[in-house]
């Protein structure tokens, strides 16, 4: 079956393997060379493009790393490269970048322009912080980003697009000389596409399953692009996150970005946005999925850290039959888990917490943002005054698997929060974990770090009890 999409203002139809990366297709087949290969691991953003998808009568544009995205993900959508943003003269964004000297060698620059245009096209929140977050997946080694931040702030000052409907906003961006006029016709073109063909679901013989692919393409990119027979999780139901019988169900294919923007999730975990910002850059969050993070089985998986303390259950489907596994029982060893090869993780659910609970997430990595954790931990706690009535603490990076600190949690339950209690809990935690020395830090460091992060959970919760804390 052919893949059909619009690239910039042209209709593209191809019979290339659906697992080819979008970057290779754009550069080699379409000969658009503005998107660059900088790392092929989603760390630099030089390959950034926009993917626009028709949803509820409007197009939602998302910035993605084309180096980690299968061509199939473009099917039925609008792909925008830097070439598709060029106007007869420089766009407003381009003008301000030039004015502020926000480019040096130029290799990363198209990625920044694309990512920031994506922000103006689709972001709900047009604050400076969100704008900076939108380009946080782009690395510039020459400028050190300061001139880029300057340019972005200046553009935000000049662009007033708050409170506009999607169609009005698009029109306004055209009027402001930010995007070309052809964007106004894309909606009609996308509507005229036939319903997206199921590249997914029924392919029982698939040798490979990809959700977002943000780690699979890093680890096995070469192999994947040669897989002819591949199952790509593309379709998710409209009700991707829902509450039913006081349980919150999350479709495994929900992206981290959709997860963190979900009103349901925000109601349960008000700090989910900060959590997501530590998880990864926007282009990664736009592709990476909740299910992928679980099945990838990394010992420092961020979503898993959270779901463990919510006592989540995984639902696997296998040719019509269904099986449930508790997340805390799922991992058996490094990258080993309780799943048959033919089973596919279809969703995750947990009981919606109630009462006076708190969820605290802590992560320390070498670089504060967008880095793999040395240690991460999440705490779910219900307190009554300062007495702990229920608590679960997870820890990542300290064992071959992301783990629930069961003994530590049992010890804390029923105790009054105090410095002494927390320190005792930390020493119990130290016995539960088995960190190893690696590139993320020495075993001794990780041991100390977990101790400190557990303390951090409680200090955030009850700063007044820890004013005299000694370290």
């Amino acid at each position, binding site marked *: 079956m052919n893949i059909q999409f619009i690239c910039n203002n042209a209709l593209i139809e191809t019979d290339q393997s659906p697992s080819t990366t979008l970057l290779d297709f754009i550069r080699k087949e379409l*000969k658009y*060379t*503005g*998107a*660059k290969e*900088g*790392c*092929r*691991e989603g*760390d*630099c953003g030089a390959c950034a493009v926009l993917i626009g998808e028709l949803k509820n009568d409007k197009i939602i544009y998302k910035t993605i790393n084309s180096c980690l995205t299968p061509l199939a993900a473009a099917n039925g959508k609008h792909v925008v*490269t830097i070439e598709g943003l*060029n106007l007869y003269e*420089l766009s407003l964004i*381009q003008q301000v*970048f030039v004015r502020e*000297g*926000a*480019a*040096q*060698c*130029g*290799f*990363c*620059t198209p990625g920044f*322009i694309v990512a920031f245009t994506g922000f103006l096209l689709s972001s709900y929140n047009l604050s400076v912080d969100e704008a*900076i977050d939108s380009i*946080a997946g*782009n*690395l*510039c*080694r020459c*400028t*050190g*980003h*300061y001139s880029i*931040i300057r340019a972005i702030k200046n553009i935000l000052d000049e662009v007033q697009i708050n409170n506009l409907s999607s169609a009005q906003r698009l029109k306004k961006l055209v009027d402001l000389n930010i995007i070309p006029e052809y964007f106004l016709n894309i909606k009609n073109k996308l509507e005229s596409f036939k319903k997206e063909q199921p590249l997914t679901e029924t392919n029982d013989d698939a040798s490979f399953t990809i959700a977002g692919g943000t780690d699979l393409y*890093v680890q096995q990119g*070469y192999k994947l692009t040669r897989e002819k027979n591949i199952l790509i999780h593309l379709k998710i139901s409209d009700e991707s996150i829902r509450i039913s019988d006081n349980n919150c169900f999350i479709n495994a294919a929900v992206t981290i970005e959709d997860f963190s923007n979900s009103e349901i999730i925000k109601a349960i975990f008000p700090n989910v946005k900060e959590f997501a910002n530590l998880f990864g850059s926007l282009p990664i969050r736009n592709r990476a999925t909740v299910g992928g993070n679980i099945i990838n089985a990394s010992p420092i998986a961020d979503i898993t850290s959270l779901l463990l303390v919510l006592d989540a259950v995984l639902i696997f489907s296998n040719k019509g039959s269904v099986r449930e596994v508790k997340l805390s029982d799922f991992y058996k060893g490094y990258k080993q888990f309780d799943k048959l090869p033919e089973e596919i993780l279809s969703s995750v659910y947990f009981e919606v917490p109630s009462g006076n609970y708190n969820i605290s997430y802590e992560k320390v*990595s*070498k*670089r*504060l*943002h*967008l*880095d*793999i954790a040395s240690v991460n931990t999440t705490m779910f706690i219900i307190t009554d005054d300062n007495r702990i009535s229920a608590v679960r603490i997870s820890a990542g990076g300290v064992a071959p698997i992301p783990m629930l600190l069961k003994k530590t949690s049992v010890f804390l339950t029923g105790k009054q929060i105090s410095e002494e209690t927390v320190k005792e809990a930390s020493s119990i935690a130290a016995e539960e974990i088995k960190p190893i020395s690696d*590139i993320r*830090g*020495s075993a*001794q*460091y990780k041991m*100390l*770090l977990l101790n*400190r992060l557990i*303390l*951090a959970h409680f200090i955030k919760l009850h700063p007044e009890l820890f*004013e005299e*804390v000694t*370290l």
Partner: protein
Amino acid sequence: MKNDDWVKHVTGTSKFINDVPLLSGTLHAFVFTSPIAKGKIIDLNYFKALELSGIKNVLTYKDIPGVNQLGTIIKDEPLLAENEVHFIGQPLAIIIGEDEHCVRNAIKFIECKIEEEAPILDPREAFRKNELIAPPVTFALGNVDAAWKECDVIVEGAVNSGGQEHVYLETQSAYSVPLEGGIKIYSSTQSPTAVQRVTAGILNLPMHKIEVDVLRLGGGFGGKEDQATVWAAIAGLASYVMQTPVKISLSRHEDIMLTGKRHPYSSDYKIGLNSEGEILAYEVYFYQNAGASADLSTAILERTMFHCTNSYFIPNVKATAYSCRTNLPPNTAFRGFGGPQGMFVIESAIHKAASKLNVEPCIIQEKNLLNEGDEFPYGQKAVNCVSHKAWFKAKELFPFEKLSEEISLFNIKNKLLKKGMAVMPICFGISFTNAMLNQASALVHIYTDGSVGISTGAVEMGQGVNMKLRQVAASIFSININKIKIETTNTTRAANTSPTAASTGADLNGNAVEKACNTLAERLKHFAVNLLKAKDIDQLKLKDEQILNTQTGTSILWDDLILQAYFKRIDLSEHAHYATPKIYFDRTINKGNPFAYHVYGTAVIQVEVDCLRGVYKINSVKAVHDFGKSINPAIDKSQAEGAIMQGLGWMTLEEIRHDSRGKILSDTLSAYKVPDVHFTPEVLEIEFLENPNKSAAIFNSKAIGEPPLMYGIGAYFAIANAIKSFRQEVDILYDAPFTPEKVLMSILGSPNC
């Protein structure tokens, strides 16, 4: 003035090697490299690889028609290993095939038996085993041995600084096309002539048979000064043998694995001061981790020595340096070129001495700043010295005594969050310290329509040198800058070029362009004397796109002038050569005048450390920097900002790690973190210190590429000071980078951090 290159960048129309369409029949190359850091090669069998579909050939050193040698300063580095391997990643064979995937896939079909020996990874161990790249070097001033007894305080210590990966966003790439017995190589190199010379040697061809062409680089930072050559030579050799075009381009992972980094250093120092805080004596030993072969290590080590006293005058100095051979990929040039490593040691010494004297380090720093006429340990005198001017301007604009008080107050109020600050003065010498390299040439053509094409040896890698050269020509001809184009850097138009390095690109090539344009301007005036009925050429002036008779007011438009000159068979092309005057260095006594001038400045850095979690953020960097008289403030400011960020990265989160076998662990961008947008300080302020520079620069400007990087060194001490205000007795290890791990472990007082 805006840089027109930026217009191409923001529209994605600037082309890099991988963006250029390939000729039909192009093959791809990759290297089979040593999986062992040290050993003897017993057998190399690639017959299975040859049988794979798509594979066209596998080349070893036996296929090299000329000399198997990459080394430029010291001839100690084969292109392809012959009998021994000396680092993991050392090329043994070149695989040539139809696409970039099949040549990589073929690697696992090559068998290599190597008799493994224990590698040396630590420079001090190499020193003990007498594994030195070159004999030790000593610079001396005064008499340290006699000075110690005058000192009231003597402090000794060891200092370590880590390597640094360049992370130029465009990885190493080259494309070679055979052409009538020779080859043309498109290379992403800072040194087109080095690529030409080395490839000529490897192919046993005269240099004129090798044409090297460079359009632009997606970043260089020194990483493509010497180490682009190997990839260009591989493409060159493969295309010469196969007589087809051959391309090689590394992935990020391969690039990090296979190429050299900034040199890690381990150093010992002894510093002596009187009770007033005056530094009387400084003795230092540098152990440079050179990697497996010389590359540029000896020149880099020499620059460490030149900058070992930073911007201070110390009357008695003895500095000794060892370039130590280890079994890591050869380390190489990186912005600062050994200077930052030397400066980090003296700053560490001052920091520790301040702690012993119980004063703020900035008291000692201020007291010992260079004065006009002071002698550096290498014999040169400080001339037009603005170390005090920059320092006191910084003190006035960013009052650091007040800042220090504010920080103290903050630290009293906050138990777990501590702020710290540091002041970082710099002094950096400009010129290649190998005096021979301080030359450049320019070839200027004026075409009959009045447009101008200029070829020089300068390579554009984002530093804006092309724009600066255009500005020079536009100002002399007084024509619109859009009439001036800088051509690719090409060895057939600019021969025997020096690398674009040592921050000298605009100085050297700008002077050559100025000379050529002045000659042309003069020639055009001579031609116009009759046309404009002038008495002599002094009456004529090139002004606003015309040549003007200043006496009569009559004029001819530039475009007409050029066309008429052409009709009268006037030569509209000019070549000029420039050599920096008055520089020399006598290596028998290690004294001389190696630098055309020095660049000065002072920065104030403030950080905030979360002592609970061991993480930190850099709040602000504010600098007063000596730009000379900047030709292009927009470019220069952007250069300074970028350099500062690289310096901050080197001191904080950029950490190169190897396992005990010499294999790099920080081998991807997910394992090696460089500053991202969130890491950028909230405040980054750079104040231009106007200081017109008369010596050997272009239009009174000063070189900008490297010096500001060294402001970043202050971040180490700002973090150290913040930690000390959390726990006074913390032992600062002077072991950069100051990663969050080291922060937390040093707060704990762990001996292992």
